């Protein structure tokens, strides 16, 4: 027998008898190896590592049953017999299968559907554009340490971060504007509802009509973001647009909102940006000076100024009054101060801020 006592990790990985035990255990292999490990307990660690390594490479476990295989083989040969006697390579049925790659288009309601000319399922496009970039893309990579400005043919401006790159056509197509990003960039897109603007990265696709926002998708980073300053933006997982006959779900972002995509969970979630900016001037009380004003009024004004929903219980807060002048502090600082003054607290839930309070009935 082989001198397994002297085996290294690599040798176990390559040993057919060991591999059989791991991948195709039989009573023979089981008894042999369990016995052997019992007699060589100091080798347990090593054999465990070898097993773990093989499992890691194997995942997902081979759960293909003989029946499944037989079915697949039958299906293949059934197809072959549909065209008897052909010794020439022509499979017309297949050529329609993945026609023209993905075609992205917009339905009237602002949603979208991915169109595949699939022989089984077809979804009728309302607007179909086949925009395969046929080598007419310009590519710009920022090799400097500072952000670089790029102006696109429609007047849109891109601020490209260092070490990022942008591919874009010299002239946009008729129905839409598409550019391809690797890394981080800030976009200021000129408004053109007739030509939606797509920022395509390998993980997320962002669609806008006219707005300013950040897209941050880096291949080495497990977190990707789209952050909206102004306007409205729709964000989709790039892989969702690659699936057939399934309407991809995207999320709609408003100003001060962001979409965060985590590689690990493969989830796209919406939340408030870390540092919201004021996007509207307050309708009344431009100076944001309050004197014994109802707390609810101040929260209402803040919500309006930042475009973020602030949720609170009107009843509970009805006796709460605050005197304050709000300056240029960051929103969350302001909230903290306000809440402290009425013994309340706040919590960010997705895209809303919720105020918790027990009310202001006691004399302070």
């Amino acid at each position, binding site marked *: 027998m082989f001198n397994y006592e002297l085996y290294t990790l690599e040798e176990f990985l390559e040993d057919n008898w060991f591999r059989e035990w791991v991948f195709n255990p039989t009573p023979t292999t089981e008894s042999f190896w369990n016995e052997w490990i019992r007699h060589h307990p100091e080798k347990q660690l090593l054999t465990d590592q070898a097993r773990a390594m093989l499992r890691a490479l194997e*995942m997902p476990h081979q759960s293909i049953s003989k029946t499944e295989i037989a079915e697949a083989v039958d299906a293949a040969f059934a197809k072959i017999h549909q065209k008897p006697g052909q010794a020439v390579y022509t499979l017309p049925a297949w050529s329609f299968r993945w026609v023209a790659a993905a075609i992205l288009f917009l339905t009237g309601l602002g949603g979208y559907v991915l169109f595949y000319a699939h022989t089984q399922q077809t979804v009728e496009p309302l607007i179909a554009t086949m925009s395969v970039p046929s080598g007419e893309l310009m590519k710009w990579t920022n090799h400097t340490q500072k952000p670089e400005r790029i102006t696109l043919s429609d007047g849109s401006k891109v601020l490209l971060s260092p070490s990022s790159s942008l591919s874009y056509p010299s002239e946009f197509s008729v129905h839409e504007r598409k550019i391809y990003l690797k890394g981080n960039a800030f976009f200021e897109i000129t408004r053109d509802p007739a030509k939606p603007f797509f920022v395509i990265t390998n993980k997320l696709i962002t669609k806008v009509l006219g707005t300013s926002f950040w897209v941050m998708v880096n291949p080495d980073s497990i977190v990707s973001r789209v952050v909206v300053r102004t306007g409205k933006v729709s964000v989709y997982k790039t892989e969702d647009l690659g699936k057939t006959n399934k309407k991809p779900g995207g999320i709609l972002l408003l100003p001060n909102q962001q979409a965060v995509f985590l590689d690990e969970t493969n989830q796209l979630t919406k939340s408030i940006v870390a540092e919201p900016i004021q996007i509207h001037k307050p309708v009344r009380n431009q100076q944001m000076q309050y004197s014994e004003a109802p707390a609810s009024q101040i929260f209402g004004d803040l919500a309006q100024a930042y475009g973020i929903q602030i949720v609170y219980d009107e009843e509970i807060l009805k006796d709460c009054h605050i005197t304050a002048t709000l300056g240029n502090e960051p929103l969350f600082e302001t909230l903290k101060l306000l809440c402290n003054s009425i013994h309340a607290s706040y919590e960010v839930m997705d895209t809303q801020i919720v105020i918790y309070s027990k009310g202001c009935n006691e004399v302070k």
Partner: protein
Amino acid sequence: MWQSFIADDEAALRKIMEGFYATLTNYASKYTKDKEIVKDCIQELFIDLWYKRHQLPIPDSVKAYLLTSLRRRLLRQLRKSVFLTQSIFLTDDEFFQFETSPDLILIERESIARQATQIAHQLNQLPQRQREIIYLKYYQNLKRDEIAEVMGITKQSASNLLQNALSALRQALPSNLYFSLLVFLTLYIN
């Protein structure tokens, strides 16, 4: 068996497909989680083989030949079905990934399943080509020449790549594996 299939023996091709189906599926699953694409590509591969049987060479390694064809096919397919323009960013190798979900390991001791998940995670940190070469060598058990064929690189590149992959792996693995890996690397380089 290859010879029979080339000589119009359908049953021979069936046997080949049956024999390699699981292995091809496992390889394809590293490229995409989409089971439909996997099934379609494999099916297409064999249908193609049948139609082109009179023009096929006799490969040194049927396994390597099938893996090579499947890889080419998968990449072609994935570039199309994934949102088209990803091909602008992605090179061939960026598709290869190990699964890291422990529930995909059936029938295994929990401590090993956990270790395996850790290892898979570490493996995914390696550059894509290194991942693939480790897989081809230690899971598919291919020889250097076969690996070179499947990955479409020269034999020398394959050797270099494997050396790099193993040393990168050594750095990536948790320290309790360090010693044993050190031992095997020393032997390997010799």
